[in-house]
């Protein structure tokens, strides 16, 4: 079903919102009143509802089927969390109300912080980062602040080649030089190479664990010891904390700072690309440098520390306190699962990934031998000689009713296919998924290249010309020329 843009449904003067008449008033705009119309379209409420309903129907979502997007953790988003996030007394709080009127809100943040600290065995947490990458920024800034406080202006951060792109981007954004560390043949950080790069100018390392190959870094404690030995800090990218929550506490591995993607581990919705939330747990060494604002326990209850003139807090990252709406959802999820449930969830996530790995290992080609953590990684060897690419293969999943798996990531594996089922898929659902992937692989091997090149066939749009979009960017709607001329 074709759906035009809202701008193409415009009728002058129409609005989908009835507002009270504007009382007579003097204008106090100092001559700065807008002289021209904004150019917004006028629609009625039924049209707006229909427009966005139809747009929504062009999307794939977790609510529809397995969304095996590796490294993205597309798990079930409970509606209870949406409900509690909208409670009056939470959703309608202003960030600058008197502290005496928001004791419940501060208590909520504090309760979530308590869970995050306990689950990671870390003594502190910075709650304000707005997303995973923002958490990385927070973590690296904390490390830099701690080093600067010692007068130690180190320059290098070691980042594995398999890292998410945000890791090097973050390190660079904080003024660090990124020094890549190769992976070994087991898909882990090459410990020897890592150690070889260490030195007094190394501020720290950013390591994802479990890593982006879906593997636990079994040398992790050695790595932590080594970086500490040269006076550097260990930043752990916590994107994959969902694989180990309730089973491994990063604090026990020597981590100094780690962000937690609340949308990945604690089920806050991805929302088509945000909002996220990325609290950062911190070791005792780093805790004093955590950014403002943060919740404290004062004599009259909870307090919010917003200023730290002359103190050690490294600064401020965000307009207000953090992603409260996401905190509410995450806490609701955490309380629902509880200590036992979170542990079961991480275990089931790993079990589900290994079930896929076991089901597909003879048809596809696993990138590494052995079991995996929460995601199963394959290379494209199984497509050799078929003229079907990883991209073609993944796009063909769409016609089968699935979202494609992650492709070409991590970069260290050729033609990578990364599948993360999460714990919220059933065995029946995985069995069907495995059958579909197998069927496609057999079809590819049978030489049916055209099927894959053309896929998907049954979507509102087939493959889109990304090159054209980048070469001749059209980034906003413009009125058609005739209409412009007529006006």
């Amino acid at each position, binding site marked *: 079903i074709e759906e035009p843009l809202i701008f193409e449904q415009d009728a002058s003067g129409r609005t989908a919102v009835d507002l009270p008449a504007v009382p007579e008033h003097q204008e106090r*705009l100092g001559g700065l009143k807008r002289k021209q119309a904004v150019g917004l379209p006028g*629609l009625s409420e039924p049209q707006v509802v229909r427009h*966005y309903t139809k747009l929504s129907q*062009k999307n794939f979502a977790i609510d529809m089927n397995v969304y095996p997007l590796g490294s993205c953790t597309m798990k079930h988003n409970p509606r209870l969390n949406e409900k509690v996030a909208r409670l009056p007394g939470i959703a309608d709080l202003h960030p600058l*109300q008197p502290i005496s009127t928001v004791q419940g809100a501060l208590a909520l943040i504090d309760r979530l912080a308590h869970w995050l600290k306990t689950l990671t065995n870390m003594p502190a947490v910075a709650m304000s980062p707005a997303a995973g990458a923002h958490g990385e920024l927070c973590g690296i800034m904390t490390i*830099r602040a701690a080093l600067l406080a010692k007068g130690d202006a180190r320059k290098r951060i070691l980042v594995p080649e398999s890292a998410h792109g945000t890791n090097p981007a973050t390190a660079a954004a904080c003024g660090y030089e990124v020094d890549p560390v190769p992976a070994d043949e087991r898909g882990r950080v090459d410990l020897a190479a890592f150690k070889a790069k260490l030195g007094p100018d190394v501020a720290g390392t950013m390591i994802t664990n479990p890593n982006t190959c879906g593997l*636990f870094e079994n040398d992790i404690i050695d790595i932590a010891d080594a970086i500490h030995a040269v006076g550097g800090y260990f930043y752990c990218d916590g994107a994959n904390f969902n694989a180990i929550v309730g089973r491994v506490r990063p604090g026990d591995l020597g981590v100094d700072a780690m962000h937690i993607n609340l949308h990945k581990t604690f089920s806050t919705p991805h929302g088509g690309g945000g909002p996220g939330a990325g609290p950062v747990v911190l070791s005792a060494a780093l805790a004093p440098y955590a950014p403002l604002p943060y919740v404290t326990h004062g004599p009259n209850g909870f307090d919010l520390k917003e200023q730290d003139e002359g103190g050690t807090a490294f600064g401020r990252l965000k307009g207000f306190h953090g992603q409260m709406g996401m905190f509410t959802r995450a806490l609701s999820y955490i309380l629902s699962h509880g200590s036992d449930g979170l542990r079961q969830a991480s275990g089931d996530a790993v079990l589900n990934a290994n079930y896929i790995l076991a089901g597909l290992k003879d048809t596809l080609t696993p990138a590494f031998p052995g079991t995996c953590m929460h995601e199963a990684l394959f290379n494209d060897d199984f497509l050799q000689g078929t003229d079907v690419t990883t991209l073609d293969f993944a796009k063909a999943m769409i016609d089968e009713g699935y979202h494609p798996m992650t492709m070409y990531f991590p970069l260290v594996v050729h033609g990578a296919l990364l599948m993360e089922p999460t714990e919220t898929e059933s065995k029946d659902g995985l069995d069907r998924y495995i059958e579909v992937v197998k069927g496609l692989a057999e079809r590819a091997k049978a030489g049916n290249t055209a099927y894959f090149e053309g896929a998907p066939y049954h979507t509102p749009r087939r493959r889109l010309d990304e090159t054209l979009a980048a070469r001749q960017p059209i980034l906003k709607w413009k009125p058609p020329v005739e209409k412009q001329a007529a006006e």
Partner: protein
Amino acid sequence: MRYLPLTESDRRAMLAKIGVPSIDSLYADVPPKALLKAPIAELPNHQGEIEVERQMQAFANQNLGTASCPSFLGAGAYRHHVPATVDYLIQRGEFLTSYTPYQPEVTQGTLQYLFEFQTQVALLTGMDVANASMYDGASSTCEAVQMANRITRRKKAVISGGLHPHYHEVIATLAKFTGFDIVSPQPAPQGGEDLMAMVDKDTSCIVVQYPDVFGHVRDYTKLAEAAHAAGALLIVAVTEIISLGLLTPPGEMGADIVTAEGQSLGNPLGFGGPYVGLFATRDKYLRQMPGRLAGQTVDAEGRRGWVLTLSTREQHIRREKATSNICTNSGLCALAFTIHLSLLGEAGLRQLAELNHAAAWRLADRLSAIDGVELQIAQFFNEFTVKLSKPAAQVVEDLAQRRILGGVPVSRLWPGRPELENLLLVAATETVTDDDMAALETALKEVLR
């Protein structure tokens, strides 16, 4: 455990297929001393909806919500009425539980609304092009300064004293770590700052707020001209986006980058987040713009469609050379924004803006008639500054005891400055009733007595 579909017998069958005896054995790579053998005992076990809702409700009950009392808070976050349609639509699973639209064939819905959002933001700000949202107004503004640094290859930002101090602090934090300088005059509630005096050949940009944090509506046309003459860019930050329904857009004043907080449209106050940062600029700076972009293209059958584009600027391609480390945007908040604005349309936005202005104007007149209250500024949108005869923080606390959220004391934003201590920021939106105004008036008289 209601969110987990596997049964014990499923787990047994799956482990058998994998060829391991237990889930624990899948964690063999974890150093044994770090592997927990049982649930963490200090934390409580799972609970049902009934118990969880009760606990969350208990948190809510300890707060005074702005919807349950007369409230006049602004300073970068505004209570507005959000139509019921918005909240229904953003909760549809196809939006709520979808990922970043990297696979355009199955995310045309998200991509199309982002394209509409970008168009709306460009139109509102009077700019050529806008991105698909950022974390919030403060982070957008901070990204704008970095972008100006990249464009001008200069490393000094001149920041108005009228910029929201939280925005200022976010920029200052990044400046400290990435090595650029910022200079700024003291806050001047009644205007009169001379920013050009601080501009030199190293200056990449001037950052101003519109209306400024005190509510003052200022014309930046000449400042833009002077900045451009000095080779610097003008960045205009807007914390109340609805103001642009009534005010000349920054683009018309010559702004090079406009950043804004989009919370006022479609998004609840939510104690500070998640919000939605807006970011717009000139076509010529497009490739230096951070953040995600939805672009129009055609599909294999020649039909119009949308994709994420120009991603070569982004971290997942450029890694340490990216324009920004930002990966997630504020998709669902942007959706709420764009739906609310679609509902309003040209006529609705205009009327909404006028209602806000009229409410503030009427409130300002009522309050300035009270002994001990002095209006500080003469031109404002929906927020203004008054000087009280007592320290504003205590007045606000006293009003809160009477269940009135009377405004934001300037000392909350700039503590420890005696000259600002008695200043109060007061906002009035379309949600404020005559009764609310009367309640504030009465209570303020009592408190100031």
